[in-house]
């Protein structure tokens, strides 16, 4: 989460990476909300809400990392003061809760869970897991949380692979989600072995995943624009 795994040379790059991620997740969410308004299907709303929560988690992460970089949360190398520690602690709680609940909403949308009680139960379990991981100081707790998010992503990938109407962009989205799973697996390993190299790798894989999502999003409807030239 918001711990100091980042190697010195990579500081700043990770903030930019997270900012790009916020942009992509928000772009997907806005598109989903527009489609929900157009078709009125709840699935799109859930998908959009999932991406909004992911955007919220990445926003918390971006702000926290930026604050850390700017020295707002204490001097690097020294333990943070009580105020800064409280901000970091609260940031960790928000980050975990937003991220896990966002991915759970996405999984609910993809698995087409229609029953509201089942949806609530899944969300409660996911948020509880994130809270337990945040409050537990042992490194394996965070590792387990990232294993959980990775598992949710694998469920989404399986649904994407079963999609009967696959096009070039859908394969890009599948590759993007595989990148995100690898990113989560690397983050999970990073917490266990406390590795800075894994921090860089996991951030890069996550960024690659979101960039692929952005590419597939921006090429949606390009075919239509070509057709539009024939309109009088």
């Amino acid at each position, binding site marked *: 989460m918001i711990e100091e795994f980042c190697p010195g040379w990579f500081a700043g790059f990770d903030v930019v990476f997270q900012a790009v991620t916020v942009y992509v997740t928000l772009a*997907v969410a806005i*598109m989903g909300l*527009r*489609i929900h308004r*157009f*078709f009125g299907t709840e*699935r*799109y709303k859930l*998908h959009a809400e999932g991406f909004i929560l992911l955007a919220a988690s990445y926003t918390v992460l971006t702000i926290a990392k930026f604050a850390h970089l700017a020295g707002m949360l204490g001097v690097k190398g020294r333990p943070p003061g009580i105020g800064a520690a409280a901000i970091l602690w609260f940031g960790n709680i928000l980050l975990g809760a937003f991220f896990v609940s966002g991915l759970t909403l996405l999984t609910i*949308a*993809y698995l087409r869970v229609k029953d509201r009680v089942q949806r609530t139960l899944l969300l409660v379990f996911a948020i509880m897991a994130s809270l337990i991981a945040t409050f537990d100081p042992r490194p394996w707790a965070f590792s387990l949380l990232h294993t959980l998010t990775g598992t949710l992503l694998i469920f989404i990938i399986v*649904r*994407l692979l*079963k*999609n009967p*109407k*696959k*096009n070039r*962009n*859908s394969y*890009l*989205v599948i590759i993007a989600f595989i990148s995100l799973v690898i990113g989560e697996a690397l983050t999970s390993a990073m917490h266990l072995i406390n590795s800075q190299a894994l921090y860089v790798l996991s951030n890069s894989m996550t960024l690659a995943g979101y960039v692929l999502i952005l590419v*597939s*999003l921006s090429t*949606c*409807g390009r*075919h*239509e*624009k070509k*057709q*539009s030239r*024939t*309109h*009088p």
Partner: protein
Amino acid sequence: MLAAIRQKGGTIKRTHLLYKANLSHDALKRYLKELMGAGFVEEIEVKKQRRYKLTEEGFKFLQEFQRFKEFSETFGL
């Protein structure tokens, strides 16, 4: 129906539309009324023949619809 009109270059004869949209006469009449009410299609006269023209609004609607459909397929929703 909108896609059928666009495929014909933006203007289509009633009989052609009936054939392309694969609809009954009554259904075509009902849908055309709805589309004209929404401002997506307008009735024009060319050489004393009734034709249906895709309006700019109808064209934009169709484009948006196709984009949303493609997004839905891309994200497997």
